[in-house]
């Protein structure tokens, strides 16, 4: 499946293009559609606590795991497993370990554990496209 990058504005009022992907998060009978940023530098899937609250999860009762960002300061995250489906990609629903985070700037980051390890992804940034498919190899 070939998808386009998503266009935003940057701090100079220029366009900036980011690889975001429409996904659905599932917990029991509840679900939320969102767009996650494909983040090849992230070990984990990181999801804003707000999504967890709307999905009925009592986040502060989950196991706490520290995360380290680029400023070198550890922050709290809470480990959970939920189902994630790539919108428009058949048979893509997978149960993935994720980390909830209380952040003013992060919505959903799709990192290696639980996401990149489950899909074949090819970036074609020069053309503002990326391809995502189920893996050919196990």
């Amino acid at each position, binding site marked *: 499946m070939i998808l*386009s990058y998503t266009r935003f*504005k940057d*701090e100079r009022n220029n366009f900036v293009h980011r690889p975001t992907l429409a996904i659905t998060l599932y917990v029991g009978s509840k679900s939320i*559609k969102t767009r996650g940023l494909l983040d090849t530098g992230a070990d984990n899937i990181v999801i*804003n606590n*707000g999504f967890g609250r709307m999905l009925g999860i009592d986040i502060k009762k989950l196991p706490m795991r520290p995360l380290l*960002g680029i400023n070198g300061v550890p922050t709290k995250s809470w480990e959970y497993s939920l189902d994630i489906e790539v919108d428009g990609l058949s048979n893509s629903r997978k149960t993935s370990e994720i980390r909830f*985070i209380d952040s003013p700037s992060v919505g959903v980051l799709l990192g290696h554990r639980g996401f990149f390890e489950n899909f074949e992804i090819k970036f074609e940034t020069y053309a*503002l496209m990326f391809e995502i498919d189920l893996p050919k190899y196990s």
Partner: protein
Amino acid sequence: MKNPIEIIDLSSIFEGLENKWVVLSKDNKKVLAVADEIEGLGKKINDGIVMKVPDPRYSFAPVTSFV
């Protein structure tokens, strides 16, 4: 060869909404709801794509701070 895929352009419809929670229509063309907290989106949360709008004052590289 030209990119055959239409860019998803959120640059205009997200103007003035930085750091807000929004519900975006499934065709990515309209903002259906805006709130400071995700809970404020109410039942609209089921109508589209829920996003936290990036702050355009900063290039994005996820930074954590101790909470």
